[in-house]
């Protein structure tokens, strides 16, 4: 972990993952994963499908039961199904591949639901903040639209705003552009880049290699449920140290015919 501190001046540790083990029935999907995520850091998880990267993300949000190890957010352990789980989750924003806006609510209602009901904040203040955030992602004019009236890229930007409005300490992005048409990928990635620049702590699972290179402070390469390689993006993309990472990166190259 020493070389990490040289990569970027890391803030204090926000999330500590210690010896995490996760099984689906008898198959181990995460084996003894240990990982620290620091304040203000952008960590990108890469790896072939089925390597466990989405599962790892879902564990951090307590959406998966874990079979061993612990996950600690700001000194609080979250792997038990505590009554406080919803309070811990308020500090974690998550955006999903399938957007998962609530179809029966307008854009604005989607955004203010969490702050109003989970955090019991005043409506006026929340609406004001929601509108400012929508303005920032260029969707203020859609605030009264229903999700079905939006394009995929717009839905995903709303989903990001919905998570941001809770003032999370950390944001988790689970393949958020995987379901989008290619021309809409950019608008979502731009929003994420801007967030990273503003100092948000982020953990991102993605298949967009160019984006990963641009946004990441640290790349974690997972295969078969273990962390195979961990390095800064420059090193990872130009000079990966393991064969498995090389093979993986080769998948994205085409040879000229």
């Amino acid at each position: 972990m020493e070389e990490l501190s040289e990569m970027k001046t890391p803030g204090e540790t926000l999330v500590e993952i210690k010896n995490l083990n996760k099984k689906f029935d008898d198959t181990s999907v995460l084996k003894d994963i240990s990982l620290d995520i620091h304040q203000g850091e952008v960590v990108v998880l890469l790896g072939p499908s089925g390597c466990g990267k989405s599962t790892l993300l879902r564990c951090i949000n307590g959406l998966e039961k874990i079979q061993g190890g612990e996950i600690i957010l700001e000194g609080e352990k979250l792997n038990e199904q505590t009554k406080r789980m919803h309070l811990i989750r308020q500090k974690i924003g998550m955006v999903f591949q399938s957007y998962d806006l609530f179809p029966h609510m307008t854009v604005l209602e989607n955004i203010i639901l969490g702050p109003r009901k989970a955090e019991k904040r005043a409506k006026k203040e929340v609406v004001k903040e929601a509108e400012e955030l929508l303005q920032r992602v260029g969707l203020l004019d859609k605030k009264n639209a229903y999700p079905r009236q939006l394009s995929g890229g717009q839905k995903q930007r709303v989903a990001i705003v919905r998570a941001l409005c809770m003032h999370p300490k950390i944001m988790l992005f689970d393949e958020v552009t995987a379901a989008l048409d290619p021309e809409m990928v950019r608008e979502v990635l731009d929003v994420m880049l801007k967030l990273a620049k503003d100092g948000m702590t982020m953990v991102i699972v993605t298949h967009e290699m160019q984006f990963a290179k641009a946004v990441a402070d640290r790349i974690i390469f997972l295969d078969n449920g273990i962390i195979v390689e961990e390095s800064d993006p420059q090193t990872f993309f130009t000079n990966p140290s393991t064969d498995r990472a090389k093979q993986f990166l080769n998948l994205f190259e085409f040879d000229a015919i």
Partner: protein
Amino acid sequence: MDFNFIREYVPYFIAAAVLTIRIASIGISISILFGLLCSIIRYFRIPILHRLIDIYIELSRNTPLLIQLFFLYFGLPKLGIVLSSETCAITGLVFLGGSYMAEAFRSGLEAIGNSQIEAGLSLGLTKSQVIRFIVLPQAISISIPAFSANVIFLIKETSVFSAVALIDLMNVAKDLIGLYYKTDETLFMLVSSYLIILLPLSIAFTLIERRLRHAGYGN
């Protein structure tokens, strides 16, 4: 057609229709609440209770209302439980309707994907808030077509209430045919009464469904 006869006996049909509507509204309202309760118990797999409700639903859906009513009205008094005609009718309707409403509601609940629940949880909502603000509103609107079909079905089922001595439309019709042999006029009034009750409802439900479909829920 003997229009004087019709004019003379229309008030009987109106009174009977009012009775039918009153009992149907009470019975159906309770059925909806009861069905909702049952479907929630099944959804959360509350131990023991959900098994009992599974059994109840199968019993209720696989037996005719008439027999349920006969049992309540003629059978139970022999065990010392005497129910009035009206109580019997309402109890029978709820016994039947509860299971139909529960099934309608279940299909709505099952249509809400797990990812919606996870999205709600990851916003930091508690489980019960997720149910209240995210699952239930969507489940209800998804089950509206099945709900409305059940409402019509249950109103139609009320036609057997004459068998437990309620003076409903069928009972009035039977009496008039038996007493005066004015079959045409009586049947005309009988059919008209049901049309007047059911046709507007059926049209209204179709319109609501069309609007819902237009709204097109789901991402």
